[in-house]
């Protein structure tokens, strides 16, 4: 999307520099480490009000440790633990320094800093409250259904959840280390398979980063079709996520109807773009043209009408509303402080949406107004999704009609060097990627998915709720494990 304006800041002055950026109204997007040749550096990425990306870099100068900044910016707490695992850099004073990403059995050097010494790693221990009358309920990683792998440790008193601790990253495949050294065409095949539910968003962010490094202009017709593809991804995901809520409150007919609508969306995608989950649809400088545009448009219009009717029936159901209202609440200030993104942030009254804040593809022409609600509960998250689902149909149809096959920029897979970042509003919120290429090969790729940003919210949302409502609370966020774990 855009190049980054970097500023080098000594370790000791990070706190002041970040405070200054936040005071100016800049938004935090990602924190990562990289070794671009001059030793490991910590990097913090923000966007200013002018829409530019601004990055702070702090060289470690061989020290392999730095003080934590979690007090300045609580949203950093998982990013710092990730840096600890992947680079062997100790973040002094971190309130929860347990390992995050790496498997228990891993005994090698930090995967992204192979020269760093092999550090002794503490085993992960769950946080729970041991007092008279409390009961610990461990669940997972294998679940009683078709659910991704993850472990939850509940401390309960009676029916009530006092505390939830979660251990994710059972699905950690080491994607960031594995794609280092690969060429662009090969790398994007892995990037799009990082997560099957957010694949088009991951493709778009990766493509935008490559295009920014190349300084390539992508033709408007290509950008329009990409926008349509990104909205199709939102449509089938929101249909799935609302349908999951129907399952969660045991409305089986509405749940089955939801699955049928999702199946129709997947078939339209396969017919038009050759893949049910849109793998291969977006590449640097390019987009796959819809195979039979008239047929796709007709199918989408029918699906729009049927989805609207289904959503009306779902939301008119008193049982549905009753179970969701007040369930899994996240107050606005908590969502802000933890750096919530996507429908979860908007349902807590935060009007942020990458499509509006940092428009990419054709969104600068669409003037997206973030859909917000104030409840911060499962019902508010469902309501935001419903409105976004219906709006996505209109955007997709308009963008399909205005797209066209145009000559694509050449030479994007040549020996490019440089770095860029890209942000895309996936169905679950901001999908941030950083890419550094050297001679056309990936030197460093980092993904901070919307699910990575939002998982910590679920711990907050679950406290004080009955344990029986946890599946419903979880479904009201419907986060991916795959693109969080990588």
């Amino acid at each position, binding site marked *: 999307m855009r190049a980054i304006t970097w500023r080098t800041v000594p370790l000791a002055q990070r706190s002041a520099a970040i405070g200054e950026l936040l005071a100016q109204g800049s938004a935090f997007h990602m924190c990562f480490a990289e070794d671009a040749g001059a030793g490991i550096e910590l990097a913090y990425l923000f966007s200013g009000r002018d829409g530019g990306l601004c990055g702070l870099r702090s060289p470690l100068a061989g020290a392999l440790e730095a003080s934590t900044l979690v007090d300045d910016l609580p949203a950093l707490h998982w990013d710092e633990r990730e840096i600890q695992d992947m680079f062997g850099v100790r973040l002094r004073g971190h309130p929860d320094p347990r390992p995050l990403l*790496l*498997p*228990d*059995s*891993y005994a*090698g050097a930090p*995967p992204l800093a192979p020269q760093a010494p092999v550090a002794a790693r503490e085993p992960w221990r769950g946080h729970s409250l041991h007092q008279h009358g409390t009961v610990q309920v461990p669940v997972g*990683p*294998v679940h*009683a*259904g*078709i*659910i*991704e*792998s993850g472990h939850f440790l509940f401390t309960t008193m009676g029916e009530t959840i006092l505390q939830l601790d979660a251990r994710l*990253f*059972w*699905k*950690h*495949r*080491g*994607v960031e*280390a*594995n794609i280092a050294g690969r060429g662009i065409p090969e790398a994007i*095949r*892995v990037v799009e*398979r*990082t*997560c*099957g*539910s957010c*694949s088009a968003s991951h493709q778009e962010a990766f493509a935008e980063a490559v295009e920014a490094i190349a300084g390539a202009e992508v033709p408007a017709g290509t950008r329009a079709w990409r926008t349509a593809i990104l909205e199709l991804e939102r449509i089938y995901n929101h249909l*799935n996520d609302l349908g999951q809520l129907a399952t969660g409150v045991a409305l089986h007919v509405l749940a*089955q*109807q939801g*699955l*049928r609508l*999702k*199946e129709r969306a*997947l078939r339209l995608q396969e017919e038009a773009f050759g893949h*049910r*989950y849109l*793998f291969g649809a977006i590449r640097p400088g390019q987009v796959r043209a819809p195979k039979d545009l008239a047929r796709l448009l007709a199918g989408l219009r029918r699906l729009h009408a049927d989805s609207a009717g289904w959503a009306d029936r779902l939301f008119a159901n008193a049982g549905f509303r009753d179970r969701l209202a007040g369930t899994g609440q996240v107050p606005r200030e908590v969502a802000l402080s933890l750096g919530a993104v996507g429908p979860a942030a908007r349902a807590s009254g935060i009007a942020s949406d990458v499509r509006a804040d940092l428009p990419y593809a054709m969104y600068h022409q669409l003037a997206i107004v973030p859909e917000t609600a104030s409840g911060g509960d499962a019902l508010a998250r469902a309501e935001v999704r419903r409105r976004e689902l219906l709006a996505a149909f209109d955007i997709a149809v308009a963008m399909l009609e205005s797209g066209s096959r145009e000559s694509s920029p050449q030479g994007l897979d040549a020996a490019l060097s440089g770095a860029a970042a890209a942000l895309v509003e996936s169905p679950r919120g901001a999908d941030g990627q950083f890419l550094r290429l050297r001679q056309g090969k990936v030197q460093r790729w980092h993904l901070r998915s919307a699910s990575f940003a939002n998982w910590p919210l679920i711990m907050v949302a679950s406290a004080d709720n009955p344990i029986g409502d946890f599946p419903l609370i979880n479904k009201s966020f419907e986060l*991916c*494990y*795959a693109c969080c*774990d990588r």
Partner: protein
Amino acid sequence: MAHKAFLIGRSLALRLVDCGSCNACESELAMLFGPDFDAQRFGIEMVPSPRHADGLIVTGPGTSQMTDALARTAEAVGAPRVVVALGDCAISGHVHRDGYAAKCGVAASLEADLQIPGCPPAPGEILGALRRLMRKGATGQGLAASD
């Protein structure tokens, strides 16, 4: 010696173990239980406990962190059991092959009785493959004796 054929004459109860998939295989598997495919009419069921299962359906390249959970789930299902490797990752590791945290699919831990290729395999393909497995079970052909 117990024979796997006896397991799956008329129904097939499976427990899912996700070993690092991208979730597309799970998404397609879930579609089997919607109105378009309705796998339950053929006696196919995903069960909430390994004790109720005839076997495992495994996705993903086999992450290191899931190795123990997969082995313990297999043990809880008991023997004889069937093992289904769902999708290219489970069969070979696919794009994640040979990383520091993922292996080359299920084969590294368990011998699969059925491989369903695809990235991801479509619900119709999954359903067709499971039904062929059930027919083999009914006739006792092509299934190895259990361990």
